[in-house]
């Protein structure tokens, strides 16, 4: 996962539970709570989107909120490409990810093509 790689590249400790669990403030991902709130609202609670958007703008700025929205849009794209074409990881990459997949419960997804 690129989040793990980009954190390691900067010698930053990253608790990967941040991705699926509660997003606390941390050194590796600044403004994680506000970013998580935007992502979560976009999927689970559209009524909460305006507040999540405003909170992110307040914590950062409008340009950052727009770029976060663009990343959301991008992964609405990538998830459909991966799952629509049955894309799977090469075996060596799967091996390197196995601890993370298990600890985060990713291997329980229907889309886990291992």
């Amino acid at each position, binding site marked *: 996962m690129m989040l793990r*790689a980009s954190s390691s590249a900067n010698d930053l400790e990253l608790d990967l539970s941040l991705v699926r669990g509660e997003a606390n403030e941390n050194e590796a*991902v600044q403004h994680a709570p506000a970013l998580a709130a935007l992502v979560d609202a976009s999927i689970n609670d559209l009524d909460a989107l305006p507040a999540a958007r405003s909170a992110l703008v307040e914590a950062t700025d409008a340009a950052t909120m727009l*770029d976060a929205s663009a990343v959301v849009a991008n992964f609405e794209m990538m998830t459909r490409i991966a799952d629509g074409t049955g894309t799977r990881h090469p075996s060596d990459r799967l091996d390197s990810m196995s601890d993370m997949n298990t600890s985060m419960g990713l291997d329980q997804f229907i889309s886990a093509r291992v």
Partner: protein
Amino acid sequence: MTETPTSIIQACHQASDLEVRPDLTAAHAHVWEKLAAPGTWWNGDERLAIAEVVRAALDDADPTPPWESASSSGRIPKNPFIASELQDAVYRLARHAGTLTEDWYLTMRDATGVTPQQWVEVIEVAISVASVLRFAQVAGIEQPKFPVALGGEPSRQDQPSKPAKHHWVPVVHLEDMTPELEPFYEGLPALAPVIRALSSVPAAMDTLTTLGNAQYIPMREMVDLNWSRGTLSRRQIEFVAGRLSALRECFY
């Protein structure tokens, strides 16, 4: 003044109080220009019919479960340009992509008669609509309407795609690169499977690259683990990407 796909996107972005990056507006305008025009395997009416199903699926406040037919439930208006079986497949791709399996894919192909390349183009239409509409929704910008369908025939330009180890669909391997794929393959020692997934339809590769460069990270900057536009850090970008993918239950 005549409304064009580009002017539709520009009007929505400019009507907001926000300063959308010009390259992002241009990327969305580019895929909107292609959306209802003849593609590689589908004509403009068919592509627009696929797009309508994607929009209906994304907007559905009470979606049908993955295993039920959305077209039979009356959620999707009948459309003379695509069969109800394909409408159901598009709805499931748009709304429940994380539930797709290889058995589903093979059954869907039998039921719809679509070729793997036609399915790749269906995905291309779906990602165009999902990107443009979801960006607007999340950013709080008016969602662009669809352009009108253009006449003309699909190009039917085939590629030397082969069965793939890492995909259900055939792909074009690096060593089989064609001139149409050169802009996406040239100079790269390897290509991530998820990028190569659409390679049997170069126009779909163009859509993926155009959107990815503007919405995420330019393809050739991917190796720079500290790349940033000056707003989100690389780690923040990957955090948003990872959290969204997990919520969509996308293993890849």
